[in-house]
């Protein structure tokens, strides 16, 4: 029973969506400030979701009806589950299980798969172009991120979140040494791509493909997708905190703000990259850096 409460109320759906939507607001506000503009009010995230629920849902004929509506909800459920597991062990409420770090990472991948499903069934040529880009993007950022996760787990000697946190509590968090910093930079860029933010927002490039992959979503379905993206914006930095910081709530919050500011900075300082650039970038530079960090970690630097 307690799991259900965790899932719905505290670290789960309610808490995560509030935190996620506030982060989305922070992101839009800071970006607007950077362009001498005054950004949206604090409740903007909630207003967007509320409005989308208020609108009707249009399902294109070619799209397979129920699948079209179920997919984003399925994505949303998966993301909330991932965030619950993360927060439960982060706040020390109950022991995690072995291998939950891998489970969390692949739960985060489900919304992208849901998106690919929607994009391909919606029968709109634009979103099919978006789908091919999303798949390429997923392939490219998974490789370096996987190396980083496995390295951290091996370093801490256990594949469970609480184990990693325990290890860091004893002999210092990973960020404090060389391999930690390199791995942290790699992880930041992977998260930027996973969230589909500007340098890598190829699948739903707004005017380019007319918000490509999202082209056919409307109303409640779009609200589900936006909510899952907001929760991911909250969940992924938490994931990094556990991997690289590990101890203390206050330290965690500070680290969280640092990561969010970094994400905003990246978004505002470079134009969108072409898809082949992105792939070359991830497989070339990022994987190289991850391997280098792994070697350093192995040598015990």
């Amino acid at each position, binding site marked *: 029973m307690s799991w259900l409460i965790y899932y719905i109320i505290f670290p789960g759906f309610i808490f995560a969506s509030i935190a996620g939507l506030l982060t989305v607001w922070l992101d839009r506000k800071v970006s607007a400030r*950077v*362009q001498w503009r005054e950004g949206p009010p604090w409740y903007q995230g909630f207003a967007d979701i509320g409005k989308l629920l208020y609108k009707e849902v249009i399902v294109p004929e070619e799209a397979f009806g129920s699948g079209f509506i179920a997919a984003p909800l399925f994505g949303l459920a998966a993301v909330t589950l991932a965030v619950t597991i993360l927060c439960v062990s982060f706040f020390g409420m109950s022991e995690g299980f072995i291998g939950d770090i891998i489970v969390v990472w692949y739960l985060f991948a489900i919304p992208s798969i849901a998106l690919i499903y929607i994009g391909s069934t919606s029968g709109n*040529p*634009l979103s099919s*172009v978006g789908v091919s880009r999303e798949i390429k993007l997923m392939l490219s950022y998974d490789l370096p991120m996987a190396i980083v996760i496995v390295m951290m787990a091996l370093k801490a000697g256990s594949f469970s979140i609480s184990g990693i946190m325990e290890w860091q509590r004893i002999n210092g968090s990973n960020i404090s040494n060389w391999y930690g910093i390199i791995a942290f930079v790699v992880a930041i860029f992977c998260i930027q791509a996973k969230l589909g933010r*500007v340098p890598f927002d190829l699948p739903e*490039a*707004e*005017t*380019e*493909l*007319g*918000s490509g992959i999202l082209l056919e979503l409307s109303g409640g379905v779009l609200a589900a997708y936006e909510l899952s993206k907001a929760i991911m914006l909250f969940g992924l930095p938490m994931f990094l905190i556990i991997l690289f910081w590990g101890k203390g709530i206050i330290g965690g919050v500070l680290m969280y703000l640092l990561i969010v500011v970094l994400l905003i900075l990246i*978004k*505002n*300082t*470079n*134009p*969108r*990259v*072409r898809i082949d*650039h992105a792939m070359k970038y991830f497989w070339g530079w990022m994987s190289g850096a991850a391997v280098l960090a792994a070697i350093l970690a192995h040598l015990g630097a």
Partner: protein
Amino acid sequence: MKQTIIPLGPYHPLLEEPEHFKLYVEGEKVVDLDVEIGYNHRGIEKLSESKTWDQVPYLVERICGICSTSHPMAYCLAVEDLVGCEIPKRAQLIRVVVCELERIHSHLLWVGLAGHFIGYNTVWMWAWKYRETILEICEKLTGNRNHYAMFKPGGVRRDFNKEQIEFALEKIVDVEKPIRMLTDAILDDPVIHKRLKGIGVLTKREAVNYSALGPTSRGSGVPWDVRYDEPLDGFKDLKWKVIVQKDGDVFSKGVVRLLECFESVSLIKQALLNLPEGGAIDADIKEVPQGEGCGRYEAPRGEVFHYVRSDGSNMPYRHKVRAPTFNNLPTFKASCKGETIADVALITASIDPCYCCTERVAVVDKNNNEKILREKDLVKLSVGKTKNIMKKIGKTPALYNLEI
């Protein structure tokens, strides 16, 4: 070799007028181009046959939003050519001021958009920020940001009073500084040189063959400028020079536009300073005899041509209008051949087709897997190209940041 053709629907997410281009492409190379316009056809020539001589400027002004004073100017010149009357000197200088103000704000708008196409979004925001001061001057002098309704056959509708002239003179000075900074930043930026030089070349012979107009032809070394070729007597005693570049690529067309802004600023200052005191501002034409007249004037995009024929009644019997883009648009066939898709967005912007209404280019794939390339797609391609040029040069210029 597989030819790709991408059709692109007229409605575009960001905004712009609905113009539809089909580009026949082999791989990345452009082979042929097909244009489909007509989404904006409003039957203006037929309408002006049911308007009196004084109402037509109001109609003609709304042909194009950003060269909205060149059309009435050419129309009034046509009617004055038909009637053969003399316009008071003060009215002519007021006309010169309004037309040159519009030339600056149209060129600044173009500079912003060209910057947007190669990824310098700061240039876009800055150019449009300084354009606001020009719009303020226009609003102060004529009462409206764009459609000024200042001209009528025989002279000008309203006069400038002392206070308006001071406001304009002092504001125009603090516009020149940022344009100077913007021009220097753009002209000596290595990435822009590498990016814009040598693409979309319109040779002099092609420019003559298509009778291209305005900056598009002056960029290829063809010195056609109506203000010089058919000078109004208002222009005779103002000192200015026609800006001509030789090599006809996108860069030289840009340079022509940027340097023209400075000419316009000096023209405005000269015109405002020696406005003759008092004097009538209207030769008030009583009635228009039978006959015909052609009037033409240098709009920001090229020469605007109006032909008017009257059969003695108070409405024009026939009124032919030809906007500059009508001649410049087909030049794409010559300048886009052999270029890559990434550069096409820039070439379409280089002739500044009446506020990038043709910036959405369609690249069609022959074996009909439609690869939709929208404007931002093209922008991204060109931005991607800028990025790897920068890698080669190994320097990220200050202008290059802030993706909107």
